[in-house]
């Protein structure tokens, strides 16, 4: 083949497909490494990945499409539809040149049923017999040559985990894309397969025959493994299972909190320094402000989420690979079911207590679309770590002169209030806008395995890129807009307080203040609420500025708390009487005060409708909750 012809020909595309839990993605990661990107397929929430693979042995660069794992190609579920569309070329208009069917060699009977459906398509095929390292060690292991004769296509034993057999797979893929595949080749292959309209039972009996002929001494088909049975019984037990899950998750999140805080502080520091440097390098004025306060601070605001996101996905990937996550989802299923959610919703909701962004991004584990939407909708109700500084400030004001246990109880109350509001909202949504039958849970529980570190790292890398590319750009744009709102029109003095009040944001606060008056908020507090719309923790620094403490206010600084607590209203009475502080606290527990979350919701749901609903509903609930809290504290205070 001449070099010119090589260049003219587009990169051959190979569809990679197989059952879930066959190590398909591990194999894909092995082949493509970091040369892969996540692709959202049009009209579907299911995602796949596209990567390029240049085999060291061959001359061809291949484009691999990692399709979602599916149990069957003929059923009407999103995963199967995407696989079918891809094989027929109707997914994105590019018909694949070949397919790579990944089978789990340790579970051939079921995997062969899928292979039969896949091989019935008119495409040259290679079958990868994955998990070969485990299968080979078992007695009565299948003979790849014999299996190849029975399937009418090359069969290559590989292991995505150890990398064994990859060279042979390269050769097979290189060969198969070069070979012509005519109608006669398809007919020859179809003769070896069960008929196209075969029932699942017929497929099963065909698969059984093939397995027996290819592995003459097959061991007992469902060998007793009472140790694994006992572990499974314990891990899915209504009490023991949930307790184990709670401990695991507590460990996971404390690890994330502890480990992520170091790089997060570092990022804060670096971007703070960078902002100073930018300010110093540019002439004093608008441009310096825009770069320092708008752009650099905006980028910092995006990147600061990265450590938590990376750690969460890294650890979750390890847990998922180990086989434990499926058991945990099964164990909490019955609790979540009461709220119209199911087991797989639990992890996203729990991770939202660290930050709603990774929580919402991890809802992809949920198979049912409506359930996934409901989980995304309620995730921001969970008290995330960004609310913590606000809680510290407001509870600090509230608990002046109260016994020591009061503050602790208030913290617990905030977390419980958020979680309850979220779960009840989920229940409401599942009865109204997201009504639909609860998808009965039937879940494959994959075998326990030692997780693959390399694979977890690649998953983390991929998630981080998705976050930066999609959410990051939106967050940055919003940050610049918010900066503009609080920086214009320009005040003339260096007085931060006057600037804050005179800016568009301040004027907006003034205008909106009557709406918040029933909650006991004055215009200063309203400005605080409005500016914290960008991100909740901004509330603390805004209130600090308004109280005259300077813009570098930090909640750990005792004087700030005192100054904010003593802030006077226009009429001289304190801003934060107990009723107002309680109302503000409830408002911050329940309100959607986080633009990045809205941006991620938009990206994950594919429309502005859901972020709009999310924002509208949460603000409504927060307002109502704050109103009730204000009235309750006032009545209680009056009685006491």
């Amino acid at each position, binding site marked *: 083949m001449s070099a010119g012809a090589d260049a003219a020909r587009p990169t051959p595309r190979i569809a990679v497909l197989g059952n879930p839990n066959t190590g398909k993605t591990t194999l894909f990661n092995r082949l493509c490494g970091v040369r892969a990107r996540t692709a959202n397929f049009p009209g579907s929430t299911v995602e796949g990945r596209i990567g390029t693979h240049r085999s060291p042995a061959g001359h061809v660069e291949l484009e691999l499409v990692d399709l979602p794992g599916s*149990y*069957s190609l*003929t*059923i*009407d*579920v999103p995963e199967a539809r995407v696989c079918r569309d891809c094989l027929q070329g109707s997914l994105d208009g590019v018909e694949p040149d070949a397919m790579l069917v990944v089978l789990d060699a*340790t*579970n051939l*009977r*079921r995997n062969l*049923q*899928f292979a039969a459906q896949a091989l019935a398509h008119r495409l040259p095929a290679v079958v990868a017999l994955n998990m070969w390292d485990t299968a080979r060690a078992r007695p009565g292991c299948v003979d790849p040559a014999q299996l190849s004769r029975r399937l009418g296509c090359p069969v290559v034993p590989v292991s995505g985990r150890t990398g064994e057999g990859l060279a042979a797979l390269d050769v097979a893929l290189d060969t198969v894309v070069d070979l012509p595949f005519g109608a006669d080749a398809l007919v020859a292959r179809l003769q070896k397969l069960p008929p196209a309209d075969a*029932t*699942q*039972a017929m497929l*099963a009996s065909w698969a059984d025959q093939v397995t027996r002929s290819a592995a003459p001494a*097959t*061991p*007992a*088909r*469902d060998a*007793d493994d*009472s140790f*694994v*049975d006992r572990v*499974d*019984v314990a891990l*899915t037990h209504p009490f023991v299972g949930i307790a184990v899950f709670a401990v695991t998750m507590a460990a996971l999140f404390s690890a994330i909190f502890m480990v992520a805080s170091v790089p997060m502080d570092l990022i804060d520091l670096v971007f703070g320094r960078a902002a100073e440097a930018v300010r110093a390098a540019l002439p004093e004025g608008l441009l310096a402000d825009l770069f320092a306060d708008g752009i650099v601070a905006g980028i910092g605001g995006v990147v600061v989420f990265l450590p938590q996101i990376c750690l969460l996905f890294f650890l979750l990937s390890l847990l998922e690979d180990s086989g434990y996550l*499926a*058991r945990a989802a*099964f164990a909490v*299923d*019955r609790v979540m*079911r009461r709220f119209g959610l199911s087991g797989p919703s639990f992890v996203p909701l729990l991770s939202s207590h660290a930050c709603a962004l990774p929580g919402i991004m991890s809802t992809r584990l949920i198979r049912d679309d409506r359930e996934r939407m409901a989980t995304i909708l309620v995730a921001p109700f969970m008290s995330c770590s960004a609310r913590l500084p606000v809680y510290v400030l407001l509870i600090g004001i509230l608990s002046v002169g109260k016994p020591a246990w009061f503050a602790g109880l208030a913290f617990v109350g905030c977390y419980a209030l958020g979680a309850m509001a979220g779960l009840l909202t989920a229940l409401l949504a599942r009865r109204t806008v997201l009504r639909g*039958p609860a*998808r*009965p*849970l*039937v*879940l*494959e*529980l*994959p*075998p326990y395995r030692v997780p693959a570190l390399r694979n977890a790292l690649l998953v983390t890398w991929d998630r981080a890129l998705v976050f930066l590319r999609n959410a990051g750009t939106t967050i940055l744009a919003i940050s610049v807009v918010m900066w503009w709102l609080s920086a214009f029109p320009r005040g003339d003095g260096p007085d931060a307080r006057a600037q804050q009040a005179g800016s568009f944001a301040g004027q907006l606060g003034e205008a909106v203040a009557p709406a918040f008056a029933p909650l006991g908020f004055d215009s200063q507090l309203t400005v605080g609420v409005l500016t914290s719309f960008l991100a909740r923790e901004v509330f603390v620094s805004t209130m600090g500025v308004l109280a005259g403490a300077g813009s570098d206010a930090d909640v750990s600084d005792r004087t700030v708390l005192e100054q904010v607590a003593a802030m006077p209203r226009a009429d001289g009475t304190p801003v934060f009487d107990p009723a107002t502080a309680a109302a503000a606290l409830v408002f911050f527990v329940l309100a959607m005060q986080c633009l990045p979350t809205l941006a991620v919701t938009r990206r994950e749901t594919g429309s502005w409708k859901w972020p709009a609903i999310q924002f509208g509903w949460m603000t409504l609930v927060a307002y109502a909750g704050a109103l009730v809290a204000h009235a309750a504290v006032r009545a209680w205070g009056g009685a006491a």
Partner: protein
Amino acid sequence: MRPDDHVCLCFRVSLRKLQNHLERERPTVASQLSECLGAGTGCGWCVPFLRRLHAQHAAGTLPALDESHEEYARRRTAYRTGRREGTYDRPPSDPMASDPDRSPAPPVRVPLTQLRRGQRAIVDCSNLADLPEGERCLLHAMGMHDDCQLRVCSPGAPCIVQIDDTRLGISAEVARRIMVTPLEDGDRRAP
């Protein structure tokens, strides 16, 4: 037994409800009585009685049970204790009948939820018709189709079963619908 007495004590299904269900739904096989509020899908004690009621209805007589309710409940307690301690393997074909001339009963179909840990059984999916189409097909594709053999890893509802080398976690509402014919321990299908 009086009409208001419970036949299925696990799910509190009275004789009257079962009579009405038989009259209204005219089930073709006795196991469809489980659709009457889940009758027979708990401990399994009442399954032979449900069978008897169904046979009576099929023969055109009013379904009734002669046993006193007190005796019935007492025997059930003994049955459940025995099952817990391992003296009973499966629901007795008719625990109160003492007719020695009865021919051996045909293989008993019971809900999946009644099997013990480690027990094997052959699956019958005919009761799954009211599941959504997609879910039913998914279940089939995961390996749970008619005549497949399963092994119980974690009994009850929800439960975990193993089919070939695949372990499936099955939620309560699906598990109650899956009917199985238990296999004797030595009666495993040849690999």
